[in-house]
Each structure stands twice: as structure tokens, then as C-alpha cells.
């Protein structure tokens, strides 16, 4: 359910290392709790994000929640598909529903996040 090679934040974002870059999305748990996502507001390519500071907003029929960056750095890719297909966040939160890719300035920040087992404990599923 929660990929072993991802890192997880207490605010329910996941981070996946990809050769120095970090792909970011929200967890299955967060997507389920939000229910149907209807809009995702993401930063522009080139903007800076800071560790555990808001970088965007995810909106469902139930609530709007801020997205927190699991790592600091520059945004190098944004999932443009979410603009027209926010449902990808619900359908495949750990894959097609990714949100941004960050060129991390300090990848060691990821060590401060949880591993899959820690995250499962965090959400009471372990």
C-alpha cells in the first residue's frame, strides 16, 4: 500500500528520490480522507519551495488543505495533467497523481521524514 522506497511527512505527503531530484505527492490515506479531489493548485516551474512549508493547495468536495513540501529546493516539474484530471490524485495517489518534482538543495532533509513503516504507524494502520 505504501511504497517502501518513499519517505513520508506527518502532513501526509510522500517523497520519492529520483537521481537527486525528488518527486512529491500526497498519500493514499490523505487522498481517501479528502474524498474526491476537485482541484489542485500547484506552484510554477522554477519557484522555490521550503521544507515543510506550504507549496500548494488540494481541494476536495469536503475540504481544502495545504500541501507541504517534504524537501527544500526548486520546482523543476509540475504535473500539468492534474489541471484537467484532479481525479488522478484519488485513483493513483502514489503514481499518476504525483504533484511536483523538486531539485533538492538539501536531500538530507528527507532523513527527517518517516519511512513506510513509521508512516503506517502514524496513521494507525500498523
Amino acid at each position, binding site marked *: 500500500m505504501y511504497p517502501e522506497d518513499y519517505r513520508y511527512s506527518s502532513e501526509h505527503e510522500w517523497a520519492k528520490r529520483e537521481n537527486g531530484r525528488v518527486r512529491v505527492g500526497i498519500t493514499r490515506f490523505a487522498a481517501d480522507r479528502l474524498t474526491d479531489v*476537485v482541484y489542485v493548485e500547484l506552484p510554477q516551474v522554477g519557484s522555490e519551495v521550503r521544507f515543510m512549508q506550504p507549496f500548494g493547495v488540494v481541494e476536495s*468536495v469536503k*475540504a481544502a488543505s495545504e500541501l507541504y513540501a517534504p524537501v527544500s529546493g526548486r520546482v523543476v516539474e509540475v504535473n500539468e495533467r492534474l489541471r484537467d484530471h484532479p481525479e488522478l490524485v484519488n485513483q493513483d495517489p502514489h503514481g499518476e497523481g504525483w504533484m511536483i518534482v523538486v531539485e533538492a538543495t538539501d536531500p538530507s532533509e528527507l532523513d527527517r521524514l518517516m519511512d513506510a513503516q513509521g508512516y503506517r504507524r502514524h496513521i494507525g494502520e500498523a
Partner: protein
Amino acid sequence: MRDFPLIFERSVPGRRGFGLPESDVPAQPLEELVPPQALRRRPPALPEVSELDVVRHYTRLSHRNFSIDEGFYPLGSCTMKYNPKLHEELARLPGFARLHPYTPEELAQGALQLLWELGEELRELAGMDAVTFQPAAGAHGELVGLLVIRAYFASRGEKRTRVIVPDSAHGTNPATAAMVGYEVVTVRSDARGNLDLAALEQYLDERTAALMLTNPNTLGLFEEQVDRISERVHAVGAQMYLDGANFNAMVGITRPGDQGFDVMHMNLHKTFSTPHGGGGPGAGVVAVKSHLEPFLPVPVVVRDGDRYRLDFDRPQSVGRVRAFYGNFANLVRAYAYLRTLGAEGLRAVAEHAVLHANYLRVRLAPYYEIPYQRICKHEFVASGVRQKRRDGVTTRDIAKRLLDYGFHAPTVYFPLIVEEAIMIEPTETESLQTLDAFVDAMVAIDRECREDPEKVRTAPHTTAVGRLDEVRAARQLDLRWRPA
């Protein structure tokens, strides 16, 4: 064709709902009266309908509405109490209803006296020193309250940048703080549902402008450490802001000013029984302690001897925040409410509101999860989590099914810290029979969740409009600003 056409779709070119006699003064060409850049090129797209068309259209629409006059409306945090019809009569007295806002003060003494006396009564109930009537509703009151706090610190040459809110706060609190330019810091609640004092202390320093607290909080629970919270907040020179949305639970019993709050807003359309739902209008009086009084919006109603006047001479004021003096007709209704009930009556309002909420909480506890098991105030938060896990039926489904039983749904999915939240506020104006009927419906729905969950998942079945596709409606917006 929709089953319910818009009033624009009933339009027939040339149809009129009225006739006027020929003007007995010569007509002037419009071009001579209005500068060309202000003249429309096309006539406005107004519906052309007869009086009967209009009456039928809006009467039919009103039948589809749900109102407090029609049924029980336990919408948590909204205090949907009965609005006495006597108030409607009083608000329509010609001396109030036909008074022009530019009437000279000396010819509007009655209205000014009413405002001044209402202010005195609200000050007394709040334990505060001064009020403004201008804010149009609660969130506007928050804005004014924080503007006043900002002006206060500016006058002292202090630069404070942060506003603290609990994780159970109404969404308007952080929104207001952000609008006023503050950084918002969220503090968690503890296991008893109180603001976590230890967590709060970590954030308190000279950067903090205010703590925005709701008491009782949105879990319907009294903040048991409010005195210590006030002490700590004041120790770093910050201000205590009360979101008075839940004032109904303590009016006439305890005073926010005595709990240490420096500013609060009151929703007259909740606690003081002026009509709301469907647009109100609301009335969000803001009350402050004396050190904040110079910063209140102008004008302020003052009494000189036995005369009343509007004081504009407040050099430190944050300025005017709304046209004229607030939603005046609702101030008349609130005044009537206060005068009819008196001190004893108001205390009984809070006592009965609290009793009713606890009655429902205890009676529903065998059927629905109640995450915080302690005496609540005017409302409580239940959860549909048991039904969700056991039957795959969500709080949303339960809320929709309640409509079939003739009840308005409670507030759902708020506060955010309770999963599948169902927030129930019965108010003091409901009878035991109504409360019991509501319990019966909730118990019946719990049984349906087990025995016939599909019926609940597809509810409502008896309303004019069935289950809407909220997801599609939000993803594929269909908005327009004039008829197609």
C-alpha cells in the same frame, strides 16, 4: 428543459408587471442628462414578466427551501433558533423601517437611543467596554477585530506578525488573519478537546499579535484552561480574540471579558435571534476592552446627557467598515429579543441550549461514536466513523438521509479534527418532542445503515431534487454571469 425554469426563461418581450401613467413633465433626451460614456449601448437583460409570474416563481422557489419555520435545523455552529415573529413587526415600525440613514441626528433620536441601549446591553453581556455595530456578519467582525488589534500595536510602535489559531478553529479565523497580513500559526487540541496549553506556549512570543479562540470551541466544549491561556497570552503582550459564534452557550452565565478576552464579535443572527440562513443579512457586533476603544470604526453612538449623537471624532479609528450603521433592522430585532427576555430569560436561553445538546448527546451515544465524552455546551460533535467502517455508509449519506425524515442535516465534516464529523446544535427553542423525533430518526438511520445501506447511500429520496453529483459539479464548473 429543467423542471424549474429561471425567471429569465419565463421572460416574454414586452411583458410588464405594472403600468405607469404618461409623465406630466416633458421628457428630456437621455443624452442630455447622462454623459455618453455612462450610457448603456444595450438595455439591461432583465426578465420581462407579469406580477403573477413573479409571485408564482418565488412562491414555488420558497416551497423548495428548508427553513427554521418549517422544521428542526440542528446545523452545528450556526445556532438556528426560532426567530420570534414579534420582532418582524417591530423592525417594520415606520419610525425604524422608513428612517433615512441621512436623517439628521436630532430627528433620529429614537433610533440612536436604541443603538446606544443595545450597545450597553451587549457590553454588559460581553464584559467589555465598547462596541461597534458596523460589521455585516461574523467574519466581517473578525476582520474588524483584527484591524483594531493591528491599529493598537501600530500606535504602540510594536511590530507583531503572527496570529495563533487552534486546529479546531472556524476556517474564517485563519482566513481573516491572513487578510489582515498576519502569518497564521496553528496549534493542536489536546485529548480532552481543549487547546493544548503546552503547545501554545511554544509559539507565544513578542511576534504574536493575538490568539483567536472560540469558546466554547467548535467541539462544543468549554475551554477549561481559558484563564491560564489568557494569562500566558497577555504575558507576551498579545491580545485575546474571541470568536463569539458560540456565545449562545454562555450568554448570561459567564462573560468573555471576565475570561480575559480583549476583543470579541457576536453574531446577532445566531445568539440574538435575528433571521439567517439563505443570506441573512447577519449582524456582527464587535465588542472591545477600553484600551482598544479608540481604534473602533467610526461613527460611534454616544450619549450626551439625554441626547444621542454619532461621534466621528476618533483620530485613531480604523475608519468606516460599512455603509451607515450596520444592518439596522436586525439591530432592532436583537434589541427586542434582549428586552423581551431580560437577564433571567437570557440565562435560561443558555441553560436550555446546553441541556438540549447534552440530552441529544447522551441519547445518541449508543448508536454513534462520540469522540469527546464529556459534558458539552450548546452543541456536540458525533462521528459517522462506526457506520463508515461497519456498513460503508458515510456521514454525508447519513446527512442526506435525514432530509427524508424531514430534518435539516447537521453540520458535517467540521471541525476538521474529527473524522466523519456530525456537529449537532439543537438550540433552546426546540421541544422535547422534536428532540425525541430527531433521535428516533437518527436511530432509524443507524438501523438502515446495517440493514439497507444502499437506501442511505442513495438518499435523499423524497426531496424535490435528489442526490447531486457534487464531484462533477465542482470539477466541471457551469457558471455564467448573464443569461445565455
